[in-house]
């Protein structure tokens, strides 16, 4: 075994190739979160308040997403969405080149769809940690339900949601690597393509490994800081 076991030069070069996929991975993560956060929260409310129909729908949706591998969700949505949209567009005579849409859009939809379901459960458990008395107290001083949620319930709910939100975000970042299956120009795909040329797969995998690690550790750290800020009111020791 000589030093060519690992091609250091390729390892370093490909590291930067993998790194160039970070913006797309982060973009998909941020957009998916931006879409999934409000939807997940809203659906969690329908579960908590047992809103008829929506509650049942949410249950099925969450079970469906949790009970199937993301890679299959990606394949299914990626195949079905264009077909459905094409038939709708055809029916209403809309001239739209559905098969030329950037895969990025599919990634947004697929990962939002997946993450929203995860967040339903995150928010549902977090909302349950806020005592019902907090809402009653808000009502008693003349706040509306919306005001009570914005000023009292959500800030407290977020504190207990933070650890799970962090996990969900990190899982989402890692899941974007599956985007390579639909040719999303993210970290994994870029490194693998680079490796194809000279069969330097090991180096490419190590690079991918390191890039995700750095990314996830950074995100974890940011969440910790934010969580600390949010839980100021709890952190102080009892006098």
């Amino acid at each position, binding site marked *: 075994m000589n030093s060519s076991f690992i091609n250091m030069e390729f390892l370093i070069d490909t590291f930067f190739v993998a790194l160039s996929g970070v913006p797309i991975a982060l973009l998909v993560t941020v957009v998916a979160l931006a879409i999934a956060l409000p939807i997940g929260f809203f659906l969690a409310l329908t579960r908590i308040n047992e809103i008829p129909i929506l509650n049942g729908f949410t249950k099925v949706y969450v079970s469906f997403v949790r009970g199937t591998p993301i890679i299959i969700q990606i394949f299914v949505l990626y195949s079905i969405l264009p077909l459905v949209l094409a038939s709708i567009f055809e029916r209403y005579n809309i001239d739209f080149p559905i098969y030329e849409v950037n895969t990025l859009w599919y990634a947004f939809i697929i990962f939002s769809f997946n993450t929203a379901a995860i967040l339903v459960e995150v928010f549902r458990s977090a909302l349950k940690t806020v005592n019902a008395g907090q809402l009653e107290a808000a009502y008693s*001083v003349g706040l509306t339900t919306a005001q009570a949620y914005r000023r009292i319930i959500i800030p407290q709910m977020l504190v207990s949601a933070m650890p799970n939100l962090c996990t969900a975000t990190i899982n989402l970042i890692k899941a974007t690597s599956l985007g390579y299956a639909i040719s999303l120009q993210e970290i994994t795909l870029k490194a693998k393509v680079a490796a194809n040329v000279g069969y330097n797969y090991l180096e490419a995998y190590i690079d991918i490994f390191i890039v995700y690690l750095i990314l996830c550790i950074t995100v974890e750290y940011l969440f910790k800081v934010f969580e600390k800020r949010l839980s100021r009111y709890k952190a*102080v020791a009892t006098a």
Partner: protein
Amino acid sequence: MLEIQNVHKSFGKNEILKGVDLSVDKGDVVVILGPSGSGKTTLLRCINFLERADQGTATLGDLKVDLHSASKKEVLAVRQRSAFVFQNYNLFNNKTAIENVAEGLIIGRKIPKEEAYKIAREALDKVGLSEKYDSYPSQLSGGQQQRVGIARAVALNPDVILFDEPTSALDPELVGEVLEVMKEIAREGTTMIVVTHEMQFAKDVAKKVIFMDGGNIVEEGTPHEIFVTPKEERTRRFLRRVLPGEYDFEI
């Protein structure tokens, strides 16, 4: 000033309130006594729409509402004119003492922030918490938390303050400070309805004492009438249980 009529409320098959009437004059302190499960707390919660009554009306000054079918606007109007002090304080955990008091003023009543904080400081001073403006509930003792709860209610300058067993969750040695504050605001002419098990407070402060049992008002009258010359056997039995010795002694 406050008239409650024919309040009915059931939880499932369990009828908690069986047609309760209650009237309170301005500046009066009305104390509601009764064994647990008699519907005292539920009555209070129905007045403030924390529970929806099955039937009943409330008249608060010139505002008349149906306790079962009041609109959102009417509910808000009633809450704007009343305040509630909870057994478990229910201070907003994510807000400091002064923010707790100011919240309803700024958001609920749309009072400018500066003025709201001035009112909040005065209210906290009144309950003896001048040192604790910026403390979070987690930094306060139970008695201090309940005093913030009372300040939060007083600051709203409501037509009536509803007290739901305000000292029941407190350690015995902290009960005194809360009762003292309640006596103080009663002296200032605040209209209060108080559900409590503190008999001495009822004797000292109440204008009218109401004894509830099984979802009905059994008897009502002055503290003297209820504690010294109760007419109903159920009242006598209850008092004998909660005031052993003392009751016989007072006759």
